[in-house]
């Protein structure tokens, strides 16, 4: 460290630079950079230096979470302080997209339900899942003419749709049906555009403990009024429609966010 890092200036603005003040060779400079990098990667909990592909997709929600976190630089907390979520002890948030290849599976296209499987095995073993949310984008539909009121209920009901999220406990075998359980549900107004969040922590915590049990989740869209398949199923961006541009789909596709706690607590100084 003494030969590698030089802090220019004494008491003035300094900038960490990797220098070769003492022995100068190109090889030693590389070694120093590698040593510097490996010690920092270890501190960050990474095995190797990430080599991201070009133009990686950064979900807007992650950027928003970051901006929320650094809004007041003097008051950054080690743990996230996310409103309405019991993730208080989490210090790490990860985002996952589902595996796109599954979109081609015929069984996932049946009706207005959609099957998603997220690979969460990249979460380190030492981290505890304290929260997980599935975020779905609902694109508001502009309905100009009033819908036909078929019964005595107010027509307002016809704009309300229910989104059910099921955990798949056992996948469907040939000709059969999958075994699933409802883990979260929400009613949305199809005239509004919004991101809806579903709490799927129990399922994600189970998948992390046992990867074999990760059969994914199924999202189902029904009308509130008569529990039938919604005629406006494109309202919720469950799959990419043919007329949707790739960049638009990347912004609107379902997203899983996990909140984990790596157990590293702030050290308390002894008096």
């Amino acid at each position, binding site marked *: 460290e003494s030969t590698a890092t030089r802090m220019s200036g004494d008491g003035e603005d*300094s900038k960490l630079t990797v220098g070769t003040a003492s022995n100068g060779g190109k090889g030693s400079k590389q070694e120093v950079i590698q040593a510097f990098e490996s010690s920092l990667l270890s501190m960050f909990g990474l095995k*190797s230096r*990430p080599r991201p592909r070009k133009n*990686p997709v950064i979900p807007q929600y992650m950027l928003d*979470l970051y901006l929320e976190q650094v809004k007041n630089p003097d008051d950054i907390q*080690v*743990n996230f302080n996310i409103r309405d979520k019991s993730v208080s002890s989490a210090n*790490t948030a990860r985002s*996952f997209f589902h595996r796109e290849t599954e979109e081609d599976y015929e069984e996932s296209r049946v009706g207005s339900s959609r099957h998603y499987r997220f690979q969460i095995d*990249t979460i380190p073993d030492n981290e505890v899942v304290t929260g997980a949310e599935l975020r779905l984008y609902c694109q508001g539909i502009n309905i100009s003419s009033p819908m036909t009121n078929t019964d005595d209920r107010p027509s307002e009901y016809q704009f309300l749709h229910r989104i059910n999220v099921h955990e798949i406990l056992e996948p469907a075998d040939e000709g059969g049906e999958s075994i699933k359980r409802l883990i979260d549900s929400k009613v949305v107004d199809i005239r509004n555009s919004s991101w809806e969040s579903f709490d799927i922590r129990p399922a994600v915590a189970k998948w992390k403990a046992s990867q074999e049990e990760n059969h994914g989740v199924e999202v189902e869209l029904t009308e509130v009024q008569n529990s039938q398949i919604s005629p406006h199923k494109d309202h919720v961006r469950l799959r990419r429609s043919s007329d949707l541009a790739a960049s638009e789909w990347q912004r609107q596709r379902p997203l899983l966010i996990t909140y984990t706690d790596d157990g590293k607590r702030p050290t308390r100084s002894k008096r």
Partner: protein
Amino acid sequence: NSERKKGGRKLKPNCRRRSLYVDFSDVGWNDWIVAPPGYNAFYCDGECPFPLADHLNSTNHAIVQTLVHSVKASAVPQACCVPTELSPISMLYLDEYDKVILKNYQEMVVEGCGCR
């Protein structure tokens, strides 16, 4: 005072926080660290002179060590100027699996220095 009279030696500045900005692009990490572009890490540097003033945030032990150093400098070193208060930073980055991660790292920014 006697030191100043003898050689006119310049006294080292007292222990305090100094500026240190770590720029991720300097180490070529800006391709996987999305935000921030760098951060003010700061560092502590300076002398822990006898007698230790309150603002130097010293421990009782540092006061004793400084006292002994003032009379027996060769045997006992001066107390160290070290970080006494640190704060976390948030980092948004891509991991080795191309997953986007937001993590809060504790004790990354020096908020205060003292003689320990």
